[in-house]
């Protein structure tokens, strides 16, 4: 491993200085299938990294492996300078308090109301008065574009887009330093998606939030992502800014960023 490093003195394109998340040679899969094989990626502090790739290529698997929900077969992952899988229960809990995860399908707690869902992490990790928790929960819900009257609804009474928003509010409940978002804007109308983008941008600017975002939304990629990572052939094939993506000659990357849909976007 180190031998290889010394042979290639130039830092690889995915490396950044002082990364908040550092993934090296990650291998992960299910049973006999390997979904990720040698993924390496850095996420810089305070950046918004978009992760794209074909459906079923393993973006969600990568996200879940990084946050430690799926075991990895090989490779190293460091978040905040520590390997989440190696931490003891206490340190792990402290770590989890510093990140928020939005799952692809929302994963709201079905037997709690919307307000309780957002308050749940606060209740577990902080000692706050009931009033403050209520107010902050409502404020968070309003920030993600919901009105206060959804508070007492249960998740089964929400629309698909509303579920996404509540899930985002819950992921942001503790003002984490990193948020992992799995397709946050899918299921939102374009206006809602744009509001979402500007919210993420605001939080990045004011709180220094780091965002790892899996998305298929070209507008989001254009509007908020500082860098984009492309997952293909079980690996991260390129990482870079939108300009890098547009200049790339990889067939899939070309088709993705310069295909009919993206052209339609630029003409409009």
């Amino acid at each position, binding site marked *: 491993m180190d031998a290889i490093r010394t042979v290639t003195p130039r830092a690889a394109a995915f490396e950044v200085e002082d990364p908040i998340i550092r993934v090296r040679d990650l291998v992960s899969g299910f049973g006999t299938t390997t979904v990720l094989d040698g993924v390496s990626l850095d996420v810089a502090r305070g950046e918004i990294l978009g992760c794209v790739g074909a459906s079923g290529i393993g973006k969600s698997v990568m996200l879940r492996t990084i946050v430690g929900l799926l075991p990895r077969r090989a490779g190293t992952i460091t978040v905040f300078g520590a390997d989440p899988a190696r931490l003891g229960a206490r340190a792990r809990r402290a770590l989890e308090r510093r990140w928020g995860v939005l799952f692809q399908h929302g994963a709201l707690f079905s*037997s709690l109301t919307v307000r309780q869902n957002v308050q749940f992490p606060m209740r577990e990790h902080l000692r706050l008065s009931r009033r403050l928790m209520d107010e*902050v929960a*409502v404020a*968070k819900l*309003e920030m993600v574009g919901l009105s206060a009257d959804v508070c*007492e609804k249960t998740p089964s009474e929400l629309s698909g887009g509303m579920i996404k928003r509540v899930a985002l509010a819950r992921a*942001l409940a503790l003002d984490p330093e990193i948020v992992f978002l799995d397709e946050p804007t899918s299921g939102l109308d374009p206006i809602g998606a744009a509001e979402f983008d500007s919210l993420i941008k605001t939080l990045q600017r004011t709180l220094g939030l780091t965002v790892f975002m899996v998305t298929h939304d070209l507008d989001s990629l254009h509007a908020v992502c500082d860098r984009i990572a492309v997952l293909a052939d079980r690996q991260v094939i390129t990482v870079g800014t939108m300009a890098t993506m547009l200049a790339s000659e990889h067939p899939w990357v070309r088709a993705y960023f310069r295909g009919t849909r993206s052209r339609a976007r630029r003409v409009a």
Partner: protein
Amino acid sequence: MSDALLDISLKDGRLALAASGAWTAERAGDLERRIDSAAKRARSATTVEIRMGGVERLDTFGAWLLERLVRAVASAGREAQVVDLPERYRDLLEEAHRANRTAVSAPRTNPLGDALETLGRGTVGILRDLVLIVQMFGEVAVALLRVLVRPWTFRFTSTVHHLDRVGWRAVPVILLMTFLLGCIIAQQGIFHFRRFGVEVYVVDMVGILVLREIGVLMTAIMIAGRSGSAYTAELGSMKMREEIDALRTMGFDPLEVLVLPRLVALVIALPALAFVGSMAALYGAGLVCQLYGMSPEVFLARLKDAISLDDFLVGMIKAPFMALVIGVVASVEGLQVKGSAESLGLNTTASVVKAIFLMIGLDGAFAIFFASIGM
């Protein structure tokens, strides 16, 4: 000083508040107390100035508390001047400024009213359950008729699959349970009857008890716990994930596709299991009797005298009806599941409890019926 978070000083009617430290989620509890006491002091001040220059970090918790303070001061008829706010936090404060504008009124509660409401809902719930069960019986009957008219629509594969699950795979546990029951009843009987020197009557007791009641009832209770609950959980989670709606939109009747095969499997399996169970119980009783010195020949001869075909039939006739009760209650409860995981749990519990309760009631009704026709 960074521990104080908010330094409060009131001089000549001028309230000067100086923020410091980290206004973040961790400190929000302490900060809230400081903010509230500052808001109280603001009432006796003429001007209020909040210096935000000293904050090291600010997140939405801090931003909201600042906004709360500003609003509290405003509601006291003063205006709060926020000065020195670092530029990068301006947007966050804007967000906080827009938040919590509409008051959410918590629903009022009244303990007596709530208790009455619970009672009323419970009563209505029982009646509604009965209606739903009767309705399900009707719908199943109609579905059955439809299938009889067009036999090729019957889900044969699915039925066999469920038969394997609820019938074949239940055999070991049923055998073991009823065998032990037979042993226990015989042992207890011998213990008491021996005092009167009439041990042989144990065989009468075991024979009649097992064939008429215990064999079928215990098997049915076991199946309600084992398969009724599984049916409810399956149908319930399918309901939760809109799978049942999907079936409907494709033109399938969920009753025909999901409920009927399960019900048919149960109606076939339960009598078979009850039979196997009864035999195991008699075998267990025979074994214990032998341990206590009654030879198998004597046991069998006595059993032949003690029981009649009627006893056996009484047990067996009840079995398919019990199966129907289990299946119908399980289906009703399964289709009642709402969106939450909690309701899935509630309905699964209710399915087992109601099925067992109804089965015991049914058993009583059968006892009266058989007594009056002399069986």
